[in-house]
């Protein structure tokens, strides 16, 4: 039987790989997509650091017979918010840089073909 842990770990791996691949592209837009993937990957990763528990939401209940580690969830929430702010910023920066220079390459070089 496939374990949930394996699924999650492999998903983290795939998301990371996708993020890394995209972050290494030459245009700003795919790079931003890559950053989004890295953000997904890291959120799940952080979350997984609290181990996986099904049906035990971190809501305090005296009767509950166990709980999910709430701390990583709080960390992920913080990380999501920060990543959101950063992503928004980088999207706008990419656009602004494109508007200013006519170039949407991350290395700022003009296109080889001479088109903007």
């Amino acid at each position, binding site marked *: 039987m496939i374990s949930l842990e394996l699924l999650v770990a492999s998903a983290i791996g795939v998301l990371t790989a996708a993020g890394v691949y995209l972050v290494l592209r*030459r245009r700003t837009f795919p790079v931003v997509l890559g950053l989004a993937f890295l953000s997904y990957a890291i959120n799940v990763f952080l979350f997984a650091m609290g181990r996986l528990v099904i049906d035990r939401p971190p809501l305090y209940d005296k009767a509950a017979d166990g709980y999910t580690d709430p701390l990583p969830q709080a960390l992920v929430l913080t990380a999501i918010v920060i990543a959101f702010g950063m992503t928004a910023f980088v999207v706008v920066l990419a656009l602004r840089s494109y508007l200013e220079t006519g170039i949407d390459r991350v290395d700022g070089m003009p296109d080889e073909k001479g088109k903007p």
Partner: protein
Amino acid sequence: MLLVLALLPIVGALAPALAIRVGRNACAMAAGTVTLAALVVLAMLAPAVMAGETVQVRIDWVPLLGMNLNLFLDALGLMFAGMILGIGLLIIIYARFYLAKADPMGRFFTYLLLFQGAMLGIVVSDNILLLLVFWELTSLTSFLLIGFWRDLPEGRQGARMALAVTGAGGLSLIGGLLILGNIAGSYDLTVILQNREAIQASPLYLPALLLILGGCFTKSAQFPFHFWLPHAMAAPTPVSAYLHSATMVKAGIFMLARLWPVLAGTETWFYLVATTGLVTMVFAAVVALFKDDLKGLLAYSTISHLGFLTMLFGFGTPMAAVVGVFHIINHATFKAALFMNAGIVDHETGTRDIKRLGGLATLMPIAATLAVVAGLSMAGIPPLNGFISKEMMLEEASHTVWWTQPWLVPALATLGATFSVAYSFRYIVHVYLGRKRDDYPRPPHDPGIGLWGPPAVLVALVVSIGLFPAVVAGPLVEQVSRAVIGGQTPYYSLSLWHGVTPALFMSIAAIGIGLVILSAHRQIAAVWHGLALPDAKALFDRALSGLTRGAVAFTARTQNGSLERYIAMFIGTAIVVGFAGFLGSDFVAGNRPTTAASPMAVVGWLALIAATALVLVNHRARYVSLIYIGIVGLVISLGFIHLSAPDLALTQISVEVVTILLMLLALNLLPKTSPRESSLPRHFRDGGLAALAGLGVGGAAWAVMSRPVDSISGYFWENAKSGGGGTNVVNVILVDFRGFDTFGEIIVLGIAALGIFSLLETAGTGASGRRILAWQPDTPRSPEHHPMMLVVATRLLLPLAVMVGLYIFLRGHNQPGGGFIAGLVISIAILMQYMASGYQFAAQRLRADHHTLIGLGVLIAAATGLGSLLFGAPFMTTAFDYFSLPIIGEFELATAMLFDVGVALTVIGAVILALAQLSQVAQSAEKQEPLETPSAMDIDPSRDGPPLVPEETVK
């Protein structure tokens, strides 16, 4: 007292800079006064030193490093200090009259005094680290002096070369002295000089020696580091006279003398130092003969004499050291006089080229007299001081055996002396004697006393030491020699006549052959100039430009602006060190029981992988990949729900959509595709990095998830309700246990929005503005802006969504939800209005200012935290209580909720600010007047009159 001496010139360096406002005389006076004052102080210290005492001052500076303001003045220091200040004073007088009106005299004397101070510092430092400070300072200040005439390219190059060579030597000296200090256990010279045995026995002796000699040889221009010195001749002549007679270059000799007691006496020392000195002496003497530039000739002569001195100290015998000490004085006197004389010739005739000179003796009798006397001393002709020390040197050389060859050193020393005679006579004969010429650049005549007076003083010394060496120089030489040797001096006599010794014959031979060579100068010179000798400067230049080219090429190659490479490097490094760290230490797989995956989980996993693959494959098609990526976010949200993280799911869901909106807004103005531009190897590289990174992070996740842990979470679980007043532990952590994180987090969000605002505020100006003006939509546009159904539906949805937002906010402390999600929900509700009814419509109706919301949010959050300070509790201490009101029933109020209000406000402000600003840019790009109707719909069937959308006949 000693401290005053050391600091006077440096502090006094300000004086000429200030005095120049008064005038040139005042300026020179100021400089002279400072130097004179220092001389007076020195004179007051001299009696004690001459009595064999050592004057000491100790002031702690950096005791932990062992670097302190420890000064001492012994006879060696006294002699050098005397030369530095004495000749310095003469130079100042000379320079006053030498410098042209246009030359910035204030700056000149300031530099000169700084240099003087640095030199003085070297010779009175007890602490070698302090000595190093002064040492490098001489390099720096001499750089300024040599480059004083900025319009001379030779000056600039010469200054840089001097700085490079002597600076580098200084660094070598740093290494050597640090080693030496470490062997001796102290950085104080007085201690080091007591540790001869320990030092010479140490395995670090050789490296220390090599490094120290690196410093000394560069400074005193020993072959093959000599090449900087002739180029430093581009300096104003007073500078050359100062630097190359008594100071700068003598610093290297000073160091040899200073460390002689602990370093000399070994075979290594002998072969390194004596050989270098010997080679330099001969080589430079030969070169000097063929220099047509007066200062060039003197420069090589200086190098040769520095070799002379180096060789003497290299012999390692006390007697040779005595001779060395004596020759230091002699060389300083005649060489300074000659440099000044060369300056006079240059000043009066307008040239320093020997070929254009000659016959000046009658035109400039005073200058000629001075030149003849000093020149003869340099040639080693009795009864002048140069003769005595040369005789003593030849005597020492005559019984020095080099590698079993007794003849080698005497022969070469004689050869050096021979050429010395030749070039000295050339200076006298080719400049002053012979027939007068009628093509001098300027009509020559003797200068004023201001220029000839200072050399005359020195020439007087040359003569008096020559005639009465024991009286004039004897006591000083004796004391200095003791200081150098570190004990009693051997028997020696300072006199003109030493009897018939081998040295006498060598001397006679040198004079005879030297004169013969000079008489055949023209022929020999022709041969010499025909030789393709390697030019040290060219070599240096080539090395430097090669270095520059290499540096430029290397930097351009590595720092090529390719962000992909930078990121690849970063990720590659992380992969390498991460795996290395992991594999380099123990790892035992965990034994935590795993959870079986349900089929739905597998389907979700499949969806995630599929969507990821779709994005990867289609990432060049930007719009479509934005659709695909939505699925990834959705699946992750579902995963969070499945894995007991409702708060995360809510957040992920709402953040996701705002992000997509933002990217769509940006994509409107960006290219819609990315070209295919990576080569196959690049794809492999990126794929490889991606796979390894994925393996690493995924593997780490697996490793952690499969092992048990004892975390601090239990505490949160137990205290959330009782201590934090909430049952949603995640929320209590966010607003209470770790509220500080959240505080930082909303600030990040707020700053991001501010940054976005700043970026976009200016988008309409400059290049960006032009581009926006020229922008053409690259996708077809439907004429309808605000479809009716959408407008109507979102109007009903707005209050509903706001209710949901309020609900999520209020329950957050106890149930999934909270300020952040609520803020996002309300933002989304407002964004819906923006999308449906348009920017104008929504912005007009949304009265709150975004900046205010952000500022207010952060302030409320901070104020909530600060409130606790009023009650004497730490920042962000929360309070909560349960209240009961009639009708309403029991409810809870917690300060943490106020904090959450701050969070929500910031979120709303930031999100709306960012998106509104972005859409404004798009508006100006579209160049279309936004639709203005009360209902905001393009098609409003309730209105009478023509449709807003332009009519067109139906096809």
